[in-house]
């Protein structure tokens, strides 16, 4: 892939206000949730039962806000492609670069790089802030503790997977509303449906839900009916890879 396509997509991304607004919204959501969860935990820690203490997850509990941030970043990623279809700009883009797969790969690369950087900064800051707050009342951990770096890292990687998924959905569906609807369905609705299956099926299938896999990837404690953290994050990457492959397959075959 020529670097000129990456540069062009980067110009597009940084020249619209919605990019900055999305990142700011994601940062605010994650940090506010992290601080409030950490504050509450620090206050309650002295009176918490040993059982509550041991079941408390000092990484994923404060990073709960990432649940919403992934949607904000996901919508941003959808728009990177879908807004070009809705305005007709995609025709100009493809006229300038008839190699459509390269265009899509450039879009995915640039958007994902931004999500990776923003995710690392936002989630890293939220982690450090929440641990600083919880350190006063105990219950906090540090990046050096077993599994902690992995959990925070997987939280960032999950955000990256959602970004690839969302960008691909934008290209597959070519419509903002459609792509966002499918993204929300995959992230929230499918896990809900799986959760309501008969016990036996639920037991086998729940772990395949995107949100469930994300929770398992970021959790410090092993959870029932889930894959291991590493298999879970690979599963999330698998969803993204399948969507990207489908988008790459379709983009050259349809009229723009």
């Amino acid at each position, binding site marked *: 892939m020529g670097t000129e396509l990456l540069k062009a997509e980067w110009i597009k991304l940084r020249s*619209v206000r919605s990019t900055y607004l999305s990142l700011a919204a994601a940062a605010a959501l994650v940090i506010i949730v992290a601080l409030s969860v950490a504050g509450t935990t620090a206050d309650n820690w002295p009176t918490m039962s040993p059982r509550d203490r041991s079941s408390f997850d000092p990484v994923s509990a404060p990073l709960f806000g990432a649940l919403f941030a992934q949607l904000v970043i996901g919508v941003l990623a959808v728009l990177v492609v879908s807004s070009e279809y809705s*305005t007709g*700009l995609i*025709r100009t883009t493809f006229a300038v670069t*008839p190699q459509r797969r390269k265009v899509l790969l450039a879009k995915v690369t640039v958007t994902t790089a931004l999500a990776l950087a923003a995710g690392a900064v936002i989630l890293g800051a939220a982690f450090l802030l929440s641990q600083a707050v919880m350190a006063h009342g105990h219950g906090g951990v540090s990046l050096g503790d077993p599994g902690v770096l992995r959990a925070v890292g997987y939280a960032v990687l999950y955000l990256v997977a959602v970004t690839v998924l969302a960008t691909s959905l934008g290209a597959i569906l070519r419509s903002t509303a459609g792509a966002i609807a499918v993204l929300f369905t995959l992230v929230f609705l499918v896990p809900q449906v799986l959760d309501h299956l008969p016990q036996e099926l639920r037991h086998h299938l729940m772990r395949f839900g995107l949100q469930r896999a994300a929770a398992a990837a970021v959790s410090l404690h092993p959870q029932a009916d889930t894959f291991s953290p590493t298999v879970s994050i690979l599963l999330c990457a698998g969803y993204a890879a399948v969507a990207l492959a489908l988008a790459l397959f379709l983009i050259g075959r349809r009229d723009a």
Partner: protein
Amino acid sequence: MIEVTELTKRFGRVTAVDGLTFTVRPGRVTGFLGPNGSGKSTTLRAILGLEAPDRGTALVGGLPYRDLRHPLHQVGALLDAGAVHPGRSARAHLMALAVAGRVGRRRVGEVLEQVGLGQVADQRAGGFSLGMRQRLGIAAALLGDPPVVMFDEPVNGLDPEGIRWVRQLMKSLAAEGRTVLVSSHLMSEMALTADHLVVIGRGRLIADTGVKAFLAEHGTGQVQVRSPARGSLAGVLREHGAGVEYQGSQELLVTGLTVDRIGDLAARNGLPVHELAARQASLEDVFMNLTRDSVEYQGMCDGN
């Protein structure tokens, strides 16, 4: 040069372009004319490789568009003035295209000045009027200084000054030896801008000819005469085989006789003539006549 050969494009049951063949040559403005829905935009998109034809080919400079090495340097196109992210500035929009198309960033400032958007280059395109967006679209088409340019309805939304500007631009691009294809559904506009016409209806070729030849072939050869004695004059002209129609309070519309012959007959009969002019059928009329069938047929289909 653009060569379209036997091009056919269907959308489901609609045949938007139907076995269309024409060539657009450099050095002149070629008007691409057809009523609404006749397949002009579809043809332009097919030339740009944006949609795959069901049959036939479209070549630019002898190559299918997808095989062009740096298309922005070879072909500039304005398809749709609305095709801009409303939140992006004109400059950033062009900058992204320039970088992707391997055009020097300096060209961005140049084309912005050329189309008269220099002052508003850093404003969000969402706030632009339709006319400003047309100019931005034209700027994008000129970015790579291409030998071939295509404009889909470029005067839509422009004020008279803007229309004159586009007309001048098309002519000067052609005068520089470029291949210029301009689509329109307005015959009158093309009469002023184009040297050559490709007329289509329902996706089929109706005419591929020079503007003057087009008029000569399809003109009705009417002569307009103004005379205070038009009753007597009409009698004389009818005796010599002319068709005469009364118009207004003093005018006659004469067919079947030349201007010279009418003047001579009036003089020989001592009848005063205040005005005597050959009247070309307007291009608009010719166009309407030529494309009427296709429009009507379309109307019937839509009604079903």
